[in-house]
């Protein structure tokens, strides 16, 4: 226990840890909070060894344990395993001795290149974890290995070039000597500067022994025994509980009519008026929740007052019919000319309602402002710890460097948790009771009604053909709220169409909107892929054959189409009442073809998805089973969002409130089988977390058209809407 050079406790297995801490006030999970309050009764059986830091990314214990930092959020997508696997591959660490912790939330050190390719960001969004960190983690792992080789070279006085590694071992073949990584700790010498390791000096992918192998996920055991810790699970000494009543009219200003009575209630510690809600701080959670219901609030108006979501579509139509141009997204060739020369022109419109993230863990955060007001800590499950740090700092009048973020596992993110609103709110409440920590919980109703939804939109597509079955022009106009939220997925450069045009026209409503798994790809691919099918039918072509022709210059895309068609036995007869539909999408660099098989209950209009096949090219696959799990889960989430999820707004007020009226997919809605194929590739890894979800709307709509000859053009495809379409 001597010479511990870091404050981390490296060797407690999570399971043992829970054993030794169960029943104490301060529960600590897998995420690296300092266990200052734990009992030492089992200390004898735990020998953490001597711990030394190799680089910013990794600590090594004399007992051999390697503790690697994961710089990404873990929201179910597997970053807790995938990034450390990449690191370990190059470090040549023994995976059995690897422990993973979240890195500090410092983007200058642990960020990866953002959208501009230079500025570092720490955001687990857009399926960017593996693709933005792949090379970075390889190089960081190689640097850690370099530190070990350097130390051994100095210690044994042999040239570094004569040293090699085996998993967890440095080898000097010339003198037939080996040393375990853990034993290097006693003579570790960190060089004055660690050289950058260029990509060409990294491992040849042929020699990967971890990347691409079936690696069980590191976090899963803790997610089967209740020990995985989410922010919702944090309890701190002297902690208070808070809730906020925000109403269901986004942006409305509250006036509390019974503040004196509320303050006089048992257990109430504070009442805080925010611009858009009333916060209650109480001594227990149950009191905070009970008092929330007693708040007598008069709500002011807001931009959303009078807004009716189902009436917005006619306004979108006017906007698309109008002459005021929006933002041009694509303009290649000359669509107008192609249209004038066309043998046949197609046009169709598609609509989508709001959908809600519905991550299983409602938003929450714990903030503690120090007694001297000069520092703060936040415990939160966030897709971007640095964003939360800034939000808390701003709420408290601190510098971001004065705020420490303790990142926790996320009980789902799907885009919702890259907004730091819960942490910022918790800070505003915590500053009124400092230094007592405040745990702010959003109820499910808060989370749903004050949610940030994927925006509604209207899409108008026009295409022209030349009489020989070739698509010569393709135009895509979108009207809706949210600018960039509407535009992702509108590009179709994998289709050989010479004249393409796309434009977005923005109509703001004041309803809170945000990125939702795959963002614009959901609505846009629904429209595009449904429309491609429609054109195929109109041109007398089979939907797969028709796409095959369009993809003739995109061999990687085509390979996924061919694979999925083979898996689904496309073209073979199906039992009466069944039909298949196909869709192709690109999302975050991953190319995927999906095919589903559906049936329909003609009495209720309920669509049942029986089977789903997908084939993806995502470049090098780091964790194959995890990639399959992401695609499977994405498809299931997609099925819920396509068949039953719907947020509607009447006079500005959100009409749904909980899972009884916002219907996400249940086990009974899941297909009997989902088969996922991954195409072999040595290209750079691409993002997969979002690639399953946007396949679903178009694949189902196309299967429905094959089954009934009718087109579904408005998401979600509720039974009511399906019956309407069937007439």
């Amino acid at each position: 226990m001597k010479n511990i050079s870091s404050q981390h406790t490296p060797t407690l297995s999570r399971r043992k840890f829970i054993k030794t801490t169960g029943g104490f006030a301060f529960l600590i999970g897998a995420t690296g909070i300092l266990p200052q309050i734990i009992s030492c009764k089992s200390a004898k059986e735990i020998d953490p060894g001597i711990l030394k830091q190799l680089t910013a990314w990794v600590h090594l214990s004399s007992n051999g344990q390697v503790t690697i930092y994961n710089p990404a959020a873990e929201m179910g997508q597997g970053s807790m395993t995938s990034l450390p696997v990449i690191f370990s591959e190059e470090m040549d660490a023994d995976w059995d001795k690897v422990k993973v912790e979240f890195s500090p939330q410092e983007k200058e050190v642990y960020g990866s290149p953002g959208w501009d390719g230079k500025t570092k960001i720490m955001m687990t969004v857009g399926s960017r974890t593996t693709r933005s960190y792949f090379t970075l983690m390889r190089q960081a792992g190689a640097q850690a290995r370099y530190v070990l080789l350097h130390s051994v070279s100095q210690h044994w006085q042999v040239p570094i070039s004569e040293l090699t590694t085996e998993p967890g071992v440095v080898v000097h073949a010339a003198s037939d000597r080996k040393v375990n990584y853990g034993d290097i700790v006693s003579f570790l010498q960190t060089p004055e500067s660690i050289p950058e390791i260029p990509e060409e000096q990294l491992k040849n992918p042929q020699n990967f022994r971890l990347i691409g192998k079936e690696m069980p996920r590191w976090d899963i055991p803790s997610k089967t025994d209740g020990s995985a810790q989410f922010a919702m699970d944090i309890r701190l000494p002297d902690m208070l509980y808070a809730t906020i009543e925000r109403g269901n009219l986004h942006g409305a200003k509250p006036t509390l009519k019974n503040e004196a009575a509320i303050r006089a209630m048992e257990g109430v510690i504070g009442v805080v008026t925010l611009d858009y809600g009333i916060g209650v701080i109480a001594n227990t959670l149950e009191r905070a929740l009970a008092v929330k219901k007693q708040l007598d609030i008069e709500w002011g108006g807001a931009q959303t007052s009078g807004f009716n979501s189902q009436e917005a579509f006619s306004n979108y139509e006017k906007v698309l019919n109008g002459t005021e141009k929006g933002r041009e997204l694509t303009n290649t060739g000359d669509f107008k000319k192609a249209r004038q020369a066309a043998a046949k022109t197609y046009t169709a419109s598609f609509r989508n309602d709001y959908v809600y993230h519905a991550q299983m863990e409602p938003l929450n955060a714990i903030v503690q402002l120090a007694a001297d007001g000069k520092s703060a800590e936040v415990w939160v499950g966030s897709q971007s710890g640095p964003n939360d740090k800034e939000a808390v700092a701003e709420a408290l009048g601190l510098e971001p460097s004065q705020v420490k973020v303790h990142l926790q596992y996320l009980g789902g993110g799907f885009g919702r948790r890259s907004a730091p609103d819960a942490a910022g709110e918790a800070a505003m409440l915590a500053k009124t009771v400092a230094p007592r920590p405040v745990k702010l919980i959003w109820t499910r109703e808060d989370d749903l009604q004050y949610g940030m939804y994927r925006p509604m939109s209207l899409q108008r597509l026009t295409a022209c053909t030349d009489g020989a079955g070739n698509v010569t022009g393709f135009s895509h106009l979108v009207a809706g709220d949210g600018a960039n939220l509407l535009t992702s997925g509108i590009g179709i450069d994998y289709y050989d169409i010479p004249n393409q045009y796309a434009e977005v026209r923005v109509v703001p409503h004041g309803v809170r909107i945000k990125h939702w798994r795959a963002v614009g790809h959901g609505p846009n691919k629904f429209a595009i892929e449904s429309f491609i099918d429609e054109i195929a039918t109109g041109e007398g072509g089979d939907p797969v054959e028709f796409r095959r022709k369009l993809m003739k210059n995109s061999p990687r895309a085509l390979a996924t189409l061919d694979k999925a068609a083979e898996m689904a036995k496309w073209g073979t007869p199906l039992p009466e009442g069944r039909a298949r539909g196909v869709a192709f999408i690109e999302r975050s660099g991953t190319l995927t073809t999906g095919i589903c098989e559906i049936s329909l209950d003609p009495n209720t209009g309920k669509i049942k998805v029986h089977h789903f096949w997908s084939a993806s090219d995502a470049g090098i696959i780091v964790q194959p089973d995890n990639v399959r799990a992401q695609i499977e889960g994405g498809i299931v989430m997609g099925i819920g969002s396509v068949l039953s999820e719907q947020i509607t707004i009447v006079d500005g007020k959100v009409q749904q409130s909980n899972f009884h009226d916002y219907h996400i997919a249940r086990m009974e809605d899941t297909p009997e089988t989902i088969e996922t194929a991954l195409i072999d590739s040595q290209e750079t890894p691409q993002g997969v977390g979002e690639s399953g979800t946007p396949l679903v709307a178009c694949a189902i709509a196309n299967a429905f058209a094959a089954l009934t000859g009718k087109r579904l053009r408005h998401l979600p495809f509720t039974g009511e809407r399906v019956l309407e379409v069937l007439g």
Partner: protein
Amino acid sequence: MPDLTLQINGQNKKVNVAEGTSLLWVLREHLGLTGAKYSCGVGQCGSCTVHVNGNPVKSCTVAAEGVADGQAITTIEGLSKDGTHPLQEAWINAQVPQCGYCQSGQIMQAAALLDKNPSPSRDEIIQHMNGNLCRCGTYLRILKAIQMVAGNKSLTTVNGK
């Protein structure tokens, strides 16, 4: 408010909470048994599922005083001594969890089924599990993990290894 005595995972726990406080809040916020999760608060999602006398119960909808005085409450923390209940092992084997938030409830719901019906059919499993929501969409793997145990097959990984 008199103290309540709750028998949780074989131990008697005394708590002092306001009348009507849900079993879920008592477990999580008063006793630190945070494996059962809050998600909907109205019995619509199953994330808070625990056993009371062997039956699966949505602990967010049950008042603590209603299950006091000798009723046997089991949470995920007490399902097995060391995380080795066959379902927990199957959950790891099938690599079920993604975010993991709903999975304590899923496992507790499944365990109650297998206690009463050791070899349920696929339809019986779906019917029994249908009230437990999973936003990550892990249902097929949940089903597979339950079938692994129900079929009493030797455990295999998802890839048949």
